[in-house]
């Protein structure tokens, strides 16, 4: 078989290593029987295999080989501590990497929230807060019950006095607060201290209690009405009211109030009034009435005029009253004991003096407390009504004053002369005109200006202002009129109108400083600049103008230039412009006019500025041209370019050198390292 013979090496090897199938083995053996060469090779292969087996068997690793490998591994890779290994192993897993990134992001978010101090309250915390709010509410409700009572009292006016005795004897309510039960106890302990003068008050309180009961009845059982009634039985309430009224006549109103007060068993305590500039009256009346009549009294008062404001107040002094009362009793007992001590007169003189001193102090206290109680009693006994009265149109002005203010700006050739003229005018009319402020300024450059302020009697103002205007050229004149209400504000048909002194401020400046009304600039081309400039001067003077300034220049190329600034009155402007035409060719004329609308201007005399440029074109060849100059310029430029590039090269070297050195050093070190490793 040709294939077996050609491939005999592979076949033999496979046979040797037992890789031939049964069929293949048969084929090989058939061939070996046929082919002598292959048989020989087969023999040789077998021999060589034996040699190989023998030789290589010696080279096989010894039995301890694996152990050595293990020991070597353990020595070279010592077991790391648990946490570190866990971390490093974790970091190699993708899931762990993702988690780590997520954690970092979350951390950043938390950090951001911390920085922006955004607080995240948990829903649980919010709920708890809400609960607390809810629990607090009932106590507040109890608290608000107290102030609500006076409102109920107001409605109880018409109710008849019910059963005061029952009310007083009612047992203390079980739900009453600490303060109330204390009050009850006090009132039982010292029934005698309740002044008999307070019958009226007691009556009122009883009524209030009845009212309360009725109000309660509408909502609750009648039997429960006694509980709140007992609470107010012995109250010490100070009532007072403030009323503000606008009335037609003050005196009438005071009389009516006095009548009403008597009607309600009260009296007028004080009256005060004040007269305004416009003859209207404003005042205050204090009335004392019995508390139970207060509401009715207020109703009546309202009929007197227009009610502007009303406040009604009740002050509860019950606790303070009974506290003071108790302390007073204690002090009295103390006083009695001290007096007894003095009477027995045993002990030293110093001790007796001490007792005297103590007795004095106690008595002082007693008097003070008695005073307090009396004051409260009086306050409780009568309600105080403070009535503020104001007559109608109180704010109406008494008179009007018309004030005029004028500003005048003058231009004049001689400021000082006008300044003195105005002063002289003022002294000649000493009655109608008065200078309040005069100032003459001269600055370092010789400019002079003056300001004068004056007051002029109204009837003479027009004449004086006209006179002052005639002194110079009026640049600006402004008048301002103001109507001032006196003693009030707003409109009034009755008030008189008066003219006040006219205030006039004059500003005088020299003509030179005046802004030109019209500005013209032009160029004149001529052959002889010098001559024409002189001609210009004479032309300007002929037209009543002046040369303000002039310049002359000549440049190396022979160009000549003269600038001349002229100022002429507007009326001569046209004539001057015509005269200029005769001097040379007029070019580039621009005219700028400043129209100051709204100001009074003397246009004919207003100044016009003309700036004239007289010039001659140069005709000398410049020494900046020609072949020699060109050559010189070229050489200079190329030398400059070379210098520039040399500088740039220097910069480049300075920039690259450190990098080149560093790279060379790194390469050299790397080479050394590689060589060393080999």
């Amino acid at each position, binding site marked *: 078989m040709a294939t077996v013979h050609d491939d005999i090496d592979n*076949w033999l090897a496979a046979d040797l290593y037992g890789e031939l199938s049964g069929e293949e083995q048969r084929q090989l053996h058939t061939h070996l029987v046929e082919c002598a060469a292959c048989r020989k090779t087969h023999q040789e292969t077998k021999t060589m295999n034996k040699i190989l087996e023998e030789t*290589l068997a010696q080279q096989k690793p010894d039995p301890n080989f694996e152990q050595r490998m293990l020991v070597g591994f353990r020595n070279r890779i010592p077991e790391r501590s648990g946490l570190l290994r866990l971390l490093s192993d974790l970091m190699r897993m993708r899931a762990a990497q993702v988690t780590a990134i997520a954690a970092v992001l979350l951390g950043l978010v938390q950090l951001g929230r911390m920085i922006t101090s955004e607080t995240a309250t948990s829903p649980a915390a919010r709920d708890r807060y809400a609960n607390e709010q809810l629990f607090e509410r009932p106590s507040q409700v109890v608290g608000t019950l107290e102030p609500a009572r006076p409102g109920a009292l107001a409605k109880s006016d018409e109710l008849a006095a019910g059963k005061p005795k029952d009310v007083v004897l009612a047992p203390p309510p079980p739900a009453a607060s600490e303060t109330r039960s204390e009050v009850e106890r006090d009132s039982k302990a010292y029934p005698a201290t309740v002044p008999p003068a307070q019958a009226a008050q007691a009556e009122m309180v009883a009524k209030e209690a009845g009212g309360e009961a009725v109000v309660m009845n509408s909502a609750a059982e009648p039997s429960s009405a006694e509980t709140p009634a007992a609470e107010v039985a012995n109250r010490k309430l100070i009532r007072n009211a403030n009323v503000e009224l606008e009335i037609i006549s003050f005196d009438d109103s005071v009389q009516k109030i006095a009548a009403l007060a008597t009607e309600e068993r009260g009296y007028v305590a004080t009256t005060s009034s004040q007269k305004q500039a416009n003859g209207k009256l404003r005042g205050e009346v204090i009335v004392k009435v019995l508390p139970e009549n207060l509401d009715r009294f207020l109703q009546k008062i309202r009929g007197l005029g227009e009610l502007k404001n009303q406040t009604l107040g009740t002050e509860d002094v019950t606790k303070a009253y009974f506290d003071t009362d108790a302390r007073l009793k204690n002090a009295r007992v103390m006083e009695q004991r001290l007096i007894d001590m003095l009477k027995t007169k045993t002990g030293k003189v110093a001790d007796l003096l001490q007792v005297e001193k103590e007795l004095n102090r106690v008595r002082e206290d007693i008097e003070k407390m008695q005073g307090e109680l009396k004051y409260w009693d009086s306050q409780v006994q009568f309600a105080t009504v403070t009535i503020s009265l104001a007559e109608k149109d109180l704010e109406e002005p008494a008179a009007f004053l018309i004030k005029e203010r004028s500003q005048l700006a003058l231009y004049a050739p001689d400021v000082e002369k006008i300044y003195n003229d105005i002063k002289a005018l003022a002294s000649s009319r000493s009655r109608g005109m008065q200078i309040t402020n005069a100032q003459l300024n001269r600055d370092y450059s010789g400019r002079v200006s003056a300001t004068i302020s004056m007051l002029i009697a109204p009837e003479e103002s027009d004449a004086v202002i006209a006179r002052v205007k005639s002194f110079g050229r009026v640049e600006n004149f402004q008048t301002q009129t103001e109507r001032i209400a006196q003693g009030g504000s707003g409109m009034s048909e009755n008030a008189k109108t008066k003219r006040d002194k006219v205030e006039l401020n004059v500003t005088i400046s020299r003509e030179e400083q005046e802004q030109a009304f019209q500005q013209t600039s032009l160029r004149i081309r001529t052959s002889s600049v010098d001559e024409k400039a002189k001609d210009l001067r004479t032309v300007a003077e002929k037209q009543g103008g002046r040369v303000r300034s002039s310049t002359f220049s000549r440049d190396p190329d022979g160009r000549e230039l003269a600038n001349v600034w002229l100022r002429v009155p507007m009326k001569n402007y046209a004539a001057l412009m015509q005269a200029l035409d005769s001097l040379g060719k007029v070019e580039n004329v621009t005219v700028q006019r400043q129209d100051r609308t709204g100001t009074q201007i003397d246009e004919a005399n207003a100044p016009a500025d003309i700036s004239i440029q007289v010039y001659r074109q140069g005709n000398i060849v410049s020494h900046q041209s020609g072949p020699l100059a060109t050559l010189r310029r070229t050489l200079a430029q190329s030398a400059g370019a070379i210098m520039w590039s040399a500088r740039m090269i220097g910069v480049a070297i300075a920039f690259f050198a450190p990098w080149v050195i560093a790279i060379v050093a790194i390469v050299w070190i790397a080479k050394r390292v590689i060589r060393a490793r080999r």
Partner: protein
Amino acid sequence: MDASEREQYRAAIHGDREAFEMIIRAQSRTLFAIAYGILQNREEAEDVVQDSLIKAWKMRWRVRDPEKFPAWLCMIARHRAHDVFRRRRAVPFTHETIETNEPETTDTAAIDQRLHSALAALPELHRAALTLRYFEEMDYRTIENTLGLTNGALRGILGRALASLRKQLRPALASTD
């Protein structure tokens, strides 16, 4: 590869030292055969195996598929041995010449010497295949897997290797016969 082996490789990849040590026990000889085939020197081969194991431990997380772990291990060893072999070539090989100059004492020693030089003339891959066969008595399929060869390639390789050896050793073979 059965499930328990797979599990072992997976554990080793995830850093289980015990599992890796088991693999060392199981695979060291294979690695040694490869290294020795290439280097023909026991000490060097042992060093190569040791280095390869260390490197494999350090780089274990690079292997995604546990199935490929043994082949990967063998590849490390082959590369490592190849590196060592190349570096050895660079330095002059003196003792070999000395050895050849030594007077031949016995026939077996002579044959040994010839066999070594004949083996040295073979390509690295052939030598590695031979040593795997003679040291570990692996069948063709296993050797192919271990060395990363395609199916059936080994048949030709071993055939050529044996033929080449035969030609080199023919005089000695003749003498022994």
